[in-house]
């Protein structure tokens, strides 16, 4: 067993009810159940843990091999689909699985997904997490949705994983491989769609309180209901959580000094939603979420709170799904406003011990309307047309308090996309043909960089452009997928798909010091692209056994890396620093595969195992006219080359137990990190 960092051991106290009548009964049952569950939550210490048997009844993660699974998958095509029809590797994490997972953050649920790698080095005290799929590192290379609505920020490309409440999520749908023909930007390694709960009873709810190590405590509450339990009805929901704790000193004891202090956190998330379901499965739902937090970064010099990061966020979404005969119109409106606040305190290790204190005050706004129409031409043929509009805005300032400097940057990007998708199931539905094409155009405008009252710290930046020219780029994303059912127990799929990730506003319009030198904005930065070829099969030799292998070959072009422009400048210190700029300089190749085996050994005993291989390398790196180390042949960071998982579960009404093994062998551009194993000896 390996513990990377201290994690709070949580001792939860929970309750859950549905309707007043059921409350007493439910409470009684839950006291017994949660007594056991409290022990299960001890598994929060363990990086990976898998569900108990209850979840296996409905969990496609472990039961995707059951061909007649009566579940609809909504993420793959932005319309409801039988997952068995889709020529791609899909994964779903069900509500039942989520309920028994001893996770503290939503992203931790993804660590159990075959081929996914989660990086969260300081546990809940990390200001964010990074999720890698399909051998392409980093959250910005994945599109993250909440109820089908995007949450990736145009500024940095990623999302704030901390702001989601695991208990508020009904299920998570994951498509691996590029899905840009349907979703556009960011969907180059995969799409992760977190679908929130919709109340089924007249009144239902859940609350939880916990206390653990590192003086961590908090609580969660979820309430909801619908005015009429069946038929057309208004429904509503409220969820919230609060957590605070004193963390630990991040720096190892051997290199620690008096400025290294314990991290800390407090965070609060509140969500409300209201919806109305009407005839033919149509519905309209509006939801609002507010999040606020403060996480200490473990350095305190003079300021009582030391360095910290905060991400107050407002998020509003409105979805309207309307069925008109053979047509289904879906409109999604979203507005996300993240107000990033940072306080940084540093003391230079060099002679003179230069003290620096500054704050960052940045607004990152993303808003848009996504629409698509599904035309059910025949029982075996659908046509989808869509129009997506989005605007991303960044407006930030670094305000120095130990000098007069204020650095500002701002920029906007408008996105417009049209797409179409055609799905046909010929030969008495023994085959699925899925073809799609999407055109994206983006305009960068209003880009500017400002320096107010420069001192020796920043006056060297004055020589660089302060107003950036408008730029435009386009992307065409095709896809073609075929799935063939050889018999009831065996099907085969082939697919080709294109994906891309737009350049981040932070790289397009922000100059500033970074650890390696001075970063120069690059308004001409273009998207990264990938082309993915994939083949896979789903084989169920026996009703109790499923085997799902896939192999894929991905070529990435225009991948972005920092390179030197050849200039060096004095940034106020004794030595010159290189001027760096993010540019499209490399080609990447991923050869990968994954296989999942699921076996219901006997009634209460279940076994699952998966293995994923990803050889993600830079195959070309253009250093022409640039000062950069040639990274050709190096591995992408945060991508496990070999990754294996195995778990055996015993699950009955009396006992729920699991034994889990996880292995990851990481690689980086300059070194390979030996594999690490983690074993959950027994989670009861």
């Amino acid at each position, binding site marked *: 067993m390996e513990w990377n960092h201290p994690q709070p051991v949580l001792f939860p106290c929970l309750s859950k009810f549905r309707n007043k009548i059921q409350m007493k009964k439910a409470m009684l049952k839950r006291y017994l159940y949660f007594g056991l569950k409290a022990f299960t939550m001890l598994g929060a210490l363990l990086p990976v843990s898998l569900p108990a048997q209850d979840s296996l009844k409905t969990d496609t993660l472990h039961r995707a091999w059951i061909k007649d699974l009566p579940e609809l998958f909504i993420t793959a095509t932005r319309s409801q689909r039988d997952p068995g029809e889709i020529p791609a590797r899909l994964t779903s994490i069900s509500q039942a699985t989520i309920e028994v997972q001893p996770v503290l953050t939503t992203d931790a649920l993804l660590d159990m997904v075959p081929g996914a790698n989660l990086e969260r080095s300081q546990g809940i005290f990390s200001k964010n997490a990074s999720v890698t799929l399909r051998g392409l590192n980093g959250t910005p290379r994945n599109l993250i949705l909440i109820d089908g609505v995007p949450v990736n920020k145009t500024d940095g490309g990623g999302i704030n994983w901390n702001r989601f409440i695991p208990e508020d999520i009904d299920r998570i749908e994951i498509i691996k491989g590029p899905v840009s023909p349907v979703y556009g930007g960011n969907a180059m390694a995969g799409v992760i769609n977190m679908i929130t709960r919709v109340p089924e009873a007249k009144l239902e709810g859940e609350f939880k309180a916990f206390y653990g190590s590192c003086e961590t405590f908090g609580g969660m509450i979820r309430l909801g209901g619908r005015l009429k339990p069946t038929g057309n009805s208004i429904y509503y929901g409220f969820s919230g959580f609060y957590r605070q704790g004193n963390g630990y000193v991040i720096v190892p004891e051997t290199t620690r000094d008096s400025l290294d202090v314990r991290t800390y956190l407090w965070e609060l998330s509140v969500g409300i939603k209201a919806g109305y379901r009407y005839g033919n499965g149509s519905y309209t739902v*509006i939801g609002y979420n507010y999040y606020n937090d403060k996480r200490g970064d473990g350095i305190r010099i003079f300021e009582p709170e030391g360095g910290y990061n905060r991400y*107050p966020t407002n998020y509003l979404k409105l979805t309207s799904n309307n069925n008109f005969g053979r047509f289904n119109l879906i409109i999604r409106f979203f507005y996300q406003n993240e107000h990033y606040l940072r306080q940084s305190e540093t003391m230079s290790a060099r*002679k003179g011990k230069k003290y620096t204190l500054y*704050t960052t005050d940045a607004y990152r706004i993303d808003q848009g309307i996504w629409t698509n129409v599904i035309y059910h031409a025949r029982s075996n043929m659908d046509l989808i047309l869509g129009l997506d509009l989005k605007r991303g805005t960044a407006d930030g300032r670094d305000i120095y308090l*130990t*000098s007069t400097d204020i650095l500002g940057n701002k920029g906007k990007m408008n996105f417009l996309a049209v797409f179409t998708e055609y799905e046909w199931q010929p030969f008495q539905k023994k085959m699925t043909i899925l073809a799609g094409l999407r055109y994206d155009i983006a305009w960068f405008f209003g880009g500017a960089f400002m320096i107010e009252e420069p*001192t020796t710290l920043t006056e060297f930046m004055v020589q660089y452009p302060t107003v950036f020219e408008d730029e435009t780029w386009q992307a065409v994303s095709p896809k073609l997928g075929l799935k063939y059912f050889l018999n009831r127990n065996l099907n085969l799929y082939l697919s080709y798909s294109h994906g891309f990730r737009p350049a981040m506003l932070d790289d397009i319009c922000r100059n500033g010091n970074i650890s390696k030198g001075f970063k120069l904005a690059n308004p001409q930065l273009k998207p990264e692209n990938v082309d993915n070829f994939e083949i896979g099969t789903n084989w169920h030799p026996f009703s109790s056994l499923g085997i799902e292998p896939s192999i894929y070959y991905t070529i990435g072009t225009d991948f972005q890396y920092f390179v030197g422009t050849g200039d060096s400048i004095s940034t106020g210190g004794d030595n010159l620093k290189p001027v760096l700029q993010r540019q499209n300089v490399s080609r990447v190749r991923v050869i990968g595969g994954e296989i999942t085996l699921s076996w219901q050994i006997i009634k209460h005993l279940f076994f699952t195992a998966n293995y994923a291989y990803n050889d993600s390398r830079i195959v070309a790196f253009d250093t022409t006219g640039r000062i950069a180390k040639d990274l050709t042949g190096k591995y992408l960071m945060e991508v496990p080359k070999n990754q294996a998982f195995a778990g055996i579960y015993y699950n009955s009404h009396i006992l729920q137990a699991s034994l889990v093994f996880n292995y990851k062998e990481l690689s980086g551009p300059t070194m390979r990190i030996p594999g690490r194993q983690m074993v959950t000896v027994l989670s009861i």
Partner: protein
Amino acid sequence: MIDMQKLTYRKKSRKYLIPWILTGLISLNSSCSKNDSGGDPPRIRFITDTGFVSHDTTLKTGQRIRIGLDAEGMDGNITFFQISVDNGVRQIFLDSGLNSAGLQYRLDIIKTVNPVEKWTFLVMDRNRNKDSIQLILNKSDSSHYGQIRSFADVLLGAQENSTAGSFFSPTTGFVYFLDMAFLNQSLIDLIYYYGLYDGTLSSPNESDAPAVFTGPTGLVNWTVKNETRYDTTSISPQAFDLTENDSLLLAVYEPAAGKRKVKYVAKDQVISFKNQAGKIGLIKVNGMEPSSTGTVSLSVKIQE
């Protein structure tokens, strides 16, 4: 008469108002939370004790004065202190970050050849409120130039040279090896070594030198570390040779330009410096053997 068409339109449009109202409220909520600086600004004053200059004054070229500053934060700690000098061109003499309720600072100023120098002392507090004071130094018409001491052909060895020392004292005119320099720490103003930036002139208080001169008498173990500030010039070797008083030394001296070391030292280069004691000088590089066992030959002229 009621316009029914407009009424119907209004009723319908209300359905779409809700998201926009919510959006507006969110924007309002966000825009209200921006930082507002407020409170009383910090205060900075000259110390008026005996021996300190606290008013505008007229000085002879090369004349030295001492000023004292006393600052306090009123509604927040002082986080920034800056000294700038304007002699036709504004230059930053000192930028310093701190986080303290008060600040006291002493500064020795040597009058340069410029007719007018405007010194500005600024403090800023945690709320970015500022206060500043100024001191104007005029050059006296009766200025005369001071005497200088000259040291010709000072041979300094790089760190691995066993025949020539790397440490020089303009006070005594002697060159020392590390062990002897350790015994005369307060005299050492100039160090030579050869490394990452080829030939380098520095001083005991420079950051890279301790990694070069190590051992029991290494710079890490020095208790007195003089700091010399250097600045490259465009003075010709011939002009240096003709200098007989401190006029040229003062003319090229830029109070705000000094660095803790001068890198890539080369033959015929003339370098301005000011030592820990506030003496201004010039160094001419006569020649060098570029290696860690090599030497550099210097001529040094410094104010008496």
